[in-house]
């Protein structure tokens, strides 16, 4: 099975189109203003998908089986509370009796009626996505009757789905968010395509030789090594105990990247890097974290307003060493050399820090692989978001040159291995 940017781009359009249709239908149904939020294609290991679910919030889902142009499963997952809120809105509309509501008129439990209302909502959303894909692919996808699922862990949702990836398997996952403008009801959508059906779709959509799917393992290993190196160097330099919280490989349209960044003033360090691959690397901290880091790195009391010269140079120094660690991690896996520029300091609205990079890459490419990483510290403010955005053609070349057998030999640390693998 091989994939290329053209095929992934089509997949991306499918997900985006589907999210738009689903949002439109949700609006139609509930009279609540909605919009399609960020759409991503993720490459995730099975255990990471499961870890996503282990945030102890109760969830409900509506699952359908697909046959036709895509075989597999499509699952809409709401946080339980959000699902109840949507159902509440729906039932208000139809002015039903309020058996399931408490004194405040709020729903607490799913009874038969609310369950069927939730299933209906989920099903209409699922169908929105699927119609969107069918439109893009100009084909027909058949959908089974919907199944309502309620639970706390991934097992309830995915364990009887044969297509759901095992702990070590890398799956291509479609993730979309739909937000209601005022009430902030989001949900996630997951598609688990059957491998063979996916392979034949990719075959149809591919416009170039592309990359062997198995080489994506190299991607994942790059992301893993890069993130670990950063956490390690950050700890060494600041004395703050840090660890990797999120590490994800996304395939997105370039303009999505600034939209993901928090809409607040951030402190960042940016680099361009050159080699195989070349691209851009950004470390973004919220202001509080940046201040903690400066306190940790600059031993004396600094009398500066905002981020003065002393603070800036501390942040730049940290960024510089983290960048070296990150890119060395990549270079090790890819067996290449990657050099990086001197650090550029920025203190501005998040999106404004990212758009110059997106614009520069946008001259040549429409989509990008983004290595999203979040580093956090226990009991202390140290939130660092890392965006590594390589030049697409360089990355394809680097991956093609990669010897898959070698990946297995590249040593890794235990960071991600002790995560519950169910």
């Amino acid at each position: 099975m091989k994939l290329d940017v053209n095929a992934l781009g089509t997949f991306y359009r499918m997900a985006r189109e589907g999210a738009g249709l689903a949002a439109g239908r949700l609006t139609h149904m509930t009279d609540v203003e909605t919009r399609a939020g960020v759409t991503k294609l993720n490459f995730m290991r099975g255990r990471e998908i499961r870890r996503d679910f282990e945030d102890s919030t109760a969830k409900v889902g509506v699952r359908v089986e697909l046959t036709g142009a895509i075989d597999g499963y499509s699952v809409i997952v709401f946080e339980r509370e959000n699902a109840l809120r949507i159902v509440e809105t729906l039932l208000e509309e139809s002015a039903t009796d309020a058996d399931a509501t408490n004194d405040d008129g709020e729903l607490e439990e799913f009874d038969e009626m609310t369950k069927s209302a939730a299933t209906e909502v989920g099903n209409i959303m699922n169908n929105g996505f699927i119609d969107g894909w069918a439109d893009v692919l100009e084909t027909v996808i058949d959908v089974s009757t919907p199944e309502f699922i309620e639970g706390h862990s991934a097992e309830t949702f995915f364990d009887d789905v044969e297509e759901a990836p095992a702990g070590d398997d890398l799956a291509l996952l479609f993730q979309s968010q739909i937000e209601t403008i005022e009430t902030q009801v989001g949900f996630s959508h997951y598609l688990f395509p059957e491998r063979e059906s996916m392979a034949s779709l990719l075959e149809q959509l591919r416009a170039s030789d592309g990359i062997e799917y198995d080489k994506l393992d190299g991607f994942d290993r790059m992301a893993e090594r890069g993130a670990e190196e950063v956490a390690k160097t950050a700890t060494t330099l600041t004395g703050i105990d840090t660890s990797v919280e999120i590490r994800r490989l996304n395939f997105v349209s370039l303009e999505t990247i600034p939209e993901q960044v928090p809409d607040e003033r951030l402190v960042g360090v940016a680099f361009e890097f050159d080699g195989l691959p070349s691209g851009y690397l950004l470390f973004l901290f919220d202001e509080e974290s940046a201040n903690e880091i400066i306190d940790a790195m600059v031993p004396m009391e600094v009398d500066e307003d905002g981020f003065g010269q002393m603070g800036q140079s501390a942040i730049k120094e940290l960024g510089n060493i983290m960048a070296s660690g990150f890119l060395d991690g990549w270079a090790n896996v890819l067996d290449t050399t990657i050099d990086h520029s001197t650090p550029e300091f920025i203190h501005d609205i998040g999106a404004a820090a990212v758009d110059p990079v997106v614009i520069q890459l946008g001259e040549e490419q429409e989509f990008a692989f983004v290595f999203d990483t979040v580093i956090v510290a226990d009991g202390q403010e140290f939130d660092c978001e890392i965006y590594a955005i390589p030049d697409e053609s360089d990355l394809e070349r680097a991956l093609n040159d990669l010897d898959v057998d070698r990946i297995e030999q590249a040593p890794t640390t235990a960071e991600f291995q002790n995560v519950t693998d169910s």
Partner: protein
Amino acid sequence: MKTYGTEPGAPTPVQVGISELTVSDGDDTLKSYGLGSCVAIALYDPETEIGGLAHTMLPDGDAAENSDRKPGKYADTAIRALLRRMVERGASYTSVEAKLAGGSDMFDFDSFGDGVGQRNIAAAKAELEKLGVPLVAADLGGDRGRTVEFTPGTGTLMVKSSNEDGTQEVTEL
């Protein structure tokens, strides 16, 4: 990001995401967050109070394959699409005026050449000139990010940027 089911006259500003463009009229406000090297293009017809905002990221749409699908992504195609949609709604081409904001260059990377922001500014100005649309006000360049809010009815473009010491600067164009 597309918004579905937006009611006309709704008090919340309509968000114009990167690569998008929106045409509206009256007291509606159109908002774009966190422009770095992107350029916000605001066009309006003072007589009919019809106007639009585009959040463009690249200079040259004529050279790109997907500019039909995403006219708002490129300065040149965005200006033409805004004009067309405004005229369709009843604006008169000859009275349309333009305001621009954005196009900062925050990073001094070798690969950026003359600066990605500068290229966008030049493209937007050139297209306006080609189409004979007067540029009546602009807040361009520099190295700070901007958030803009545009009201087609009055033609007011509010530009907010933050200074290094954390204070906010608001410019009304």
